[in-house]
């Protein structure tokens, strides 16, 4: 299945019945699939909104009413949704937002890139907020994380961002899809706005004029984010045991890097790979622990250097970081990145 279709089907199986979006390449297959799929399901709602801004606010509405809801877009469209994402965080509303990143800034192009790392992990919206950000690297992981994303979004009442890229959205791989959850089995929500008949009325609002109360609200959000940092960090390593240099890459870049590392290992070059799966919370502790054994880190991204800042923050100076990035939608081959890694390896006299 194609990545975009995988994400859409996994969402439906996780109980997503509401999709609001506005078309943009390279994620158009998500609304295409959703328009057909949701029309077959009882209670399924698909709306192609008049704009990205309208679609994210429809997400807010559906989430307030207790539905599992998703929207998707690519770079420029996500920029427009930022205001709504800030509101989702303030109102503590669950939602899943997929960004199949393309080359930027501006309209950029439609080729795969990772230039929205800052946008996803720092948030382009206003106010102190965080979103859970996943960086899947295969269609299978895209299915699993989208599916799980809905559960985590509900658990923490937080928007979950799936940061893919144009390549993940377009490529096809065999996938084992997770089982469909019947809506009745989903845990009940005690905060939704569903009409106050027979119960006291509830409030959901992001305007808190009293600074003391707003501060309290911020602390409440902060404690939630701290819990996520403690419990939800995910990463994986490969060839790490005897590595003298660790490559750190996420998403599709990590797959290209892994292909490169396989080649380098055949030549006896001892490099390993660490791949953050959650981009926020970032696996800082895992990297700090690695730095006890390895002193050289090679960060590869399909942008001009964004995640490398998190790596440096994690290391706090306990390791030497070299960055190599290719922005603009250029797709490097494993051979090309292998050459860059090996030249750095020999420059540092590791082999």
């Amino acid at each position, binding site marked *: 299945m194609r990545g975009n279709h995988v994400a859409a089907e996994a969402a439906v199986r996780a109980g997503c019945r509401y999709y609001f979006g506005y078309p943009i*390449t390279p994620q158009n297959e998500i609304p295409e699939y959703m328009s057909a799929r949701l029309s077959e399901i009882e209670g399924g709602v698909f709306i192609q909104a008049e704009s990205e801004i309208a679609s994210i606010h429809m997400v807010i509405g559906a989430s307030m009413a207790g539905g599992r809801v998703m929207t998707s877009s690519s770079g420029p469209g996500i920029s427009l949704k930022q205001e709504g994402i800030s509101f989702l965080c303030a109102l503590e509303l669950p939602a899943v937002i997929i960004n199949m990143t393309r080359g930027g800034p501006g309209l950029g192009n*439609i080729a795969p890139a990772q230039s929205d790392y800052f946008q996803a992990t720092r948030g382009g919206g206003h106010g102190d907020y965080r979103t859970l950000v996943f960086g899947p690297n295969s269609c299978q992981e895209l299915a699993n994380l989208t599916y799980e994303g809905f559960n985590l979004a509900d658990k923490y009442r937080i928007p979950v961002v799936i940061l893919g890229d144009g*390549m993940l959205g*377009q*490529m*096809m*791989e*065999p996938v084992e899809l997770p089982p469909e959850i019947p809506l009745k089995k989903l845990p009940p929500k005690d905060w939704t706005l569903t009409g106050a008949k027979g119960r006291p009325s509830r409030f959901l609002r992001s305007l808190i004029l009293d600074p003391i109360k707003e501060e309290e609200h911020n602390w409440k959000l902060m404690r939630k984010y701290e819990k996520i940092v403690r419990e939800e960090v995910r990463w994986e390593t490969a060839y790490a045991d005897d590595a003298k240099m660790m490559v750190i890459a996420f998403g*599709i870049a990590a*797959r*290209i890097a*892994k*292909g*490169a*590392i*396989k080649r380098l290992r055949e030549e006896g070059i001892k490099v390993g790979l660490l791949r953050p799966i959650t981009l926020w919370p970032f696996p800082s502790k895992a990297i700090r622990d690695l730095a006890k054994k390895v002193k050289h880190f090679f960060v590869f991204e399909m942008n001009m250097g964004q995640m490398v800042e998190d790596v440096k923050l994690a290391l706090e100076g306990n390791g030497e970081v070299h960055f190599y990035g290719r922005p603009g939608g250029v*797709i*490097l*081959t*494993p*051979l*090309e990145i292998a050459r860059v890694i090996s030249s750095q390896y020999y420059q540092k006299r590791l082999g």
Partner: protein
Amino acid sequence: MLIKTVFSGFGGQGVIMMGQLLATAGMVEGKNVTCLPSYGAEVRGGTANCTVVISTEEIASPVASEPEYAVLMNNPSLIRYQNQVQSGGTIFLNSSLIEDRPIRGDLTIYEIPLNDLVQQLPDHKGANVVMLGAFIKKSALVTLDTMIRVLKDTFGGKNPAVFKLNKSALVLGYEYLE
């Protein structure tokens, strides 16, 4: 085993479809596959290519540095890919549209005159599937039977005539090369 194939041509020549069919056939045979299409914003014209990796082990990268096979449908594709194919690799080229020949001596070249071959088919369509037939004959990545099954699953549901046309195109290509 890890075999990488690049399909390349004009948008509209059915390049992505060839890749998708091959990847699906690989999956049906129980192998690991990735299929990475790449095309411009145009519906027709422009360039399109598709990288398929078929493997019995885990596929790290869906991007191929040095593919074993290149299936080239037009001249710009030949210029782009002839130097990327690994030494000892194979190029299948559409000799109806490609006038140049690779200057490398370390490759096996199969020339398939697709425009002439499709004259034998009703409506003169299905050049990409003719090429695919020739490709699976020589690469032996998947069997003819599997590919016919995949054609049936892909096209048979909507219109049995389309499946029949594609099947005869596949067999025509398969039997063209010795």
